[in-house]
């Protein structure tokens, strides 16, 4: 699988925010949106492709959780 490009990461970010807005509980919804924004922001300067892939994989797992739980 090719290393994640900037475009793929941004797509993932948008998908996660979109799914998070489906939480019906106010506290879960606000937490998910806030945490996703902060996590992507915090890691925006990571350069190492292996580390980027690890982070992307974790994000995909979390996206799965949000899809199931929201």
């Amino acid at each position, binding site marked *: 699988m090719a290393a994640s490009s900037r475009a793929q990461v941004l797509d993932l970010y948008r998908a996660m925010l979109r799914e998070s807005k489906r939480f*019906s509980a*106010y*506290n*879960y919804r606000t*937490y998910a949106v806030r945490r996703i924004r902060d996590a992507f922001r915090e890691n925006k300067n990571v350069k190492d492709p292996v580390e980027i892939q690890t982070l992307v994989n974790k994000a995909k797992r*979390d996206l799965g*959780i*949000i899809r*199931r*739980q929201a």
Partner: protein
Amino acid sequence: MLLRAAWRRAAVAVTAAPGPKPAAPTRGLRLRVGDHAPQSAVPADTAAAPEAGPVLRPLYMDVQATTPLDPRVLDAMLPYLINYYGNPHSRTHAYGWESEAAMERARQQVASLIGADPREIIFTSGATESNNIAIKELEAAIQPDTSLVSVMTVNNEIGVKQPIAEIGRICSSRKVYFHTDAAQAVGKIPLDVNDMKIDLMSISGHKIYGPKGVGAIYIRRRPRVRVEALQSGGGQERGMRSGTVPTPLVVGLGAACEVAQQEMEYDHKRISKLSERLIQNIMKSLPDVVMNGDPEHHYPGCINLSFAYVEGESLLMALKDVALSSGSACTSASLEPSYVLRAIGTDEDLAHSSIRFGIGRFTTEEEVDYTVEKCIQHVKRLREMSPLWEMVQDGIDLKSIKWTQH
């Protein structure tokens, strides 16, 4: 594919299940948080017709009493509530093996949060059971001069952090067992049982965004700490706590511990900021507000404030849009002022006016601002009605008054 579809349907049904019904109908209550209307899983259950549109419920600011399940925890638990329902002690088939694997994985997650070995973690039904097991050890002690020190890591009423590492050092040098009830501290402040020389530790699931009904006790192996089982039976959990280990619950506890380990720094930073905000905004708008507990050694998520000349219960009733508490939930039925406040030397009248604000992982800035606004508004209103406040405004020193006996 079919399995996942069934799981998804079940997951939707679980998350759409109704929360606890409010004690009174929502008519007339100005409640803030808008959630989508809960769909009743049991049709025609109650006389009340389902609400059309969002149901408003109070803001939740009582995290010391209990915490909501983190969605990541629920996600981890679901498979074990649906298809992977085996008894972890069944040794002869895959249902047992996969359930046991999950239980051991959870044990490792709990151990790693506190720097312990997984063999030192015994699952229980909660911190209360863990405390009882630890204290019972004292009665079962062989040597007559063996004793036990038991301390709460973070107090649940005023949020004070005890100097655990120092206490641990003293106990270990005097060969005295050291137990700590870490229910409010696990996953919120860094804990290491080896650095802090802790021999026994109680852990509660529902204080760290995990499920209710589960907890754990950490029991040191080197040097060996002997405890007596409270509950005897089939010898599960190394004979220290018989009874089938509830896999879904322990998986939830494990997941909660893992999430807590990952989120500890982020949560602590955010909660500290919100805590500062709440305290500063209240104190700059209201005089005569006292924060209970040492401000230096304090967990920011538990704020206990006393509002002079205002009765705590009446303020709680006034703040009906916010779920708060005065004192700990375990003593909330009695009207006695908190034993903790009495112990730190708070005046009787201030002890009766204390409110505990809980800030947690899911608390928002908006909720804090709303709580502050309402608090200021109602304290001002209640003080206006208070004859004591009037006397103070007139410059009378309340301590000089000789109240007549009737």
